[in-house]
């Protein structure tokens, strides 16, 4: 077992392993070896950017280069290692305050003597001011500090930061690798694993959800009925409304209990429920927290709609493949008969226009459009083709 086992289908692993050896040589200080101080892991969503970063961090901290079983490896995996800091956000953006808190930490010497590592997941969510706050530290880090940023593409990072980083490009893991990984780690049937790998189009996290969670499978099946029920205006509007409702339900499932507990914890921390005067700033602190929670809820909702749209897009891609007579495995192989019907009822041009509509809706949502309106507009375009 090794820390790299968690990484699925990536060809960059051997290179990173060599880097780890180099790094420990550099640390020994006998003149050989070298270490890059800022890394940028890029790759499509679900390719495992943060998994790779985490494995790399563990390998750097581990005396055996990532054995996966020593205390260093275990702590990095659990996120409790004192020399590995994580910057993650559940909101729409990483706030400048979060970055400013982190920068002094990056200046410390590693407490266990190996490396001081800072992992910034979702570095594409760094706002311009937050990125500026990060710049100086990324540019000239102390000797033993390593920055690891993760983002979908290098272009998502401001050029000033990007140019200081060594870019590691990940690929979409092949279906077979994902299926094998699921079968090995999740105790699911081989057929389910294969279906999940295909349906998720190489998104490992999504594949895991589809393989293990029946609700997620049902939800997806429901979403994929959408293109078949768009004959009159009413159905289009209902389809859009259903997508938004489902996303809201998703957000409620994900956020409600969490929100409540966080508010409760904050109140307790500020001394609510005890005797004596109530602290003056408690209500405003709670308000602040609730604002954060609202942002998180918006993001969860938006992500959920986006997932659904990716599934719809894949379905039209399958239809296009059939229409163009490409002999290839479909993402939705199990739906082939109904896809054949859909393909027969239109032409490739209109399928392409429909795919454009889905892409346009995804972009609109990214640009903060009103979700219901954007999806209605999309559904109406899908109807016309």
């Amino acid at each position: 077992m090794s820390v790299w086992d968690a990484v699925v289908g990536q060809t960059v692993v051997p290179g990173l392993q060599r880097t780890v050896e180099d790094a420990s040589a550099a640390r020994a200080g006998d003149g050989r070896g070298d270490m890059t101080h800022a890394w940028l892991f890029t790759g499509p969503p679900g390719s495992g950017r943060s998994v790779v970063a985490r494995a790399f961090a563990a390998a750097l901290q581990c005396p055996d280069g990532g054995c996966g079983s020593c205390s260093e490896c275990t702590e990095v995996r659990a996120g409790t290692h004192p020399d590995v800091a994580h910057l993650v956000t559940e909101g729409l953006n990483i706030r400048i305050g979060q970055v400013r808190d982190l920068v002094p930490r990056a200046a410390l010497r590693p407490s266990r003597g190996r490396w001081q590592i800072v992992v910034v997941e979702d570095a594409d969510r760094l706002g311009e001011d937050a990125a500026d706050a990060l710049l100086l530290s990324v540019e000239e880090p102390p000797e033993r500090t390593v920055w690891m940023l993760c983002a979908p593409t290098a272009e998502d990072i401001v050029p000033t930061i990007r140019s200081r980083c060594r870019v590691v490009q990940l690929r979409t893991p092949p279906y077979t690798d994902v299926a094998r990984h699921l079968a090995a780690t999740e105790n699911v049937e081989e057929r389910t694993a294969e279906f999940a790998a295909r349906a998720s189009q190489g998104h490992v996290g999504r594949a895991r959800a589809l393989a293990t969670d029946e609700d997620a499978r049902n939800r997806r099946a429901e979403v994929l009925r959408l293109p078949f029920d768009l004959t009159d205006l009413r159905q289009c509007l209902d389809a859009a409304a259903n997508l938004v409702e489902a996303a809201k339900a998703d957000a409620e499932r994900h956020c409600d209990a969490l929100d409540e507990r966080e508010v409760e914890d904050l109140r307790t921390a500020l001394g609510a429920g005890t005797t004596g005067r109530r602290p003056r700033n408690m209500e405003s602190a709670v308000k602040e927290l609730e604002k954060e929670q609202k942002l998180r809820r918006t993001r969860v909702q938006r992500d959920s709609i986006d997932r659904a749209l990716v599934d719809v897009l894949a379905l039209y891609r399958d239809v296009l493949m059939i229409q163009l007579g490409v002999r290839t495995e479909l993402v939705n192989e199990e739906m082939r008969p109904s896809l054949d019907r859909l393909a027969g009822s239109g032409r490739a041009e209109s399928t392409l226009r429909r795919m454009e509509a889905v892409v346009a809706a995804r972009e609109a949502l990214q640009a903060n459009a009103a979700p219901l309106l954007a999806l209605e507009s999309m559904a109406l375009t899908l109807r016309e083709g």
Partner: protein
Amino acid sequence: MSALSTDPLVPVTLVAGPESLLAERAVAAVVRAARAADPDADVSHTTGGELTAGGVAEHVSPSLFATRRVLVVNDVQDVSDAVGELLVEQVRAPAPDVHIVLVHPGGVKGKKHLTALRKAGVHEVGAERITRPDDQVGFVRAEVRRAGGRIDEPAARQLVDAVGGELRALASAAAQLVSDSADGVVSESVIATYFEGRAEVKGWVVADRAVEGKTGEAVEQLRWALETGTDPVLITGALATALRSLARLSSVPRGQRDADVASDLGVPPWKVRILRGQLRGWSSDGLARAVRAVADADLAVKGGGNDPTLALTTALVHIGDARAQQPATT
């Protein structure tokens, strides 16, 4: 009963409602009547939170000088239960020559006391907000009459459009116009001299004009709305809602009852008739185009474009075109 409601000098008056202008007037009417009946009348003001049981007793017990007394209790929702009971007692068995005015600003707080007072048969004056445009016009006409002038309905409507729904502003505008006009007749030209433009245009007004095919009027209303500070996002929201209702209605089978349609669409029943009228002249494809135009405007307003006014105007023009579009033959 009618004699009672016109004579403000009753033992206990309850003024309930959020419209402070009307509440103040009701209080002033009681005070004026008391002073008219007895120039030495003693008027005192207090709030519900400050009024104690002892205070009530002090005010209602016979006075040494035997003057008429008026006690105005503002924020009556704050009174304690004990005081509340004493007040109800005053309705049942009023003390002579004492007039109590209880002012309640609306809302649910203190509802228990309100119910008890009403049950005891308190004389009540309403001070509800006037929100319907027709009622506001009626209010303006009454105000002008009160100030000794005359106004016809179109002129009153013009004044409401220009000043907005704020009663205080309407009342003072009405009084001002009466004193400014030579013969007390407030005509449309007098109003146009002093008031120009529109105070507030709501998003749904723009949306209604747009889906009715009155593109020119819609654009005019849009400019007023933006000029008076309406958020562009609210206007795209109103347009989307209007088109959504129409699109849903277009798929409802003919001959369904209005009430069923209303619950189906999630709109009040009276709206269905209006919607049916608006739907005339629309084809499905036209509606689809219109929704897309609004979605484009929404994106532009949210930062995709740099001129919200242009984006919204374009959307209105597209909606007009989409409505004019011949129904597709398919």
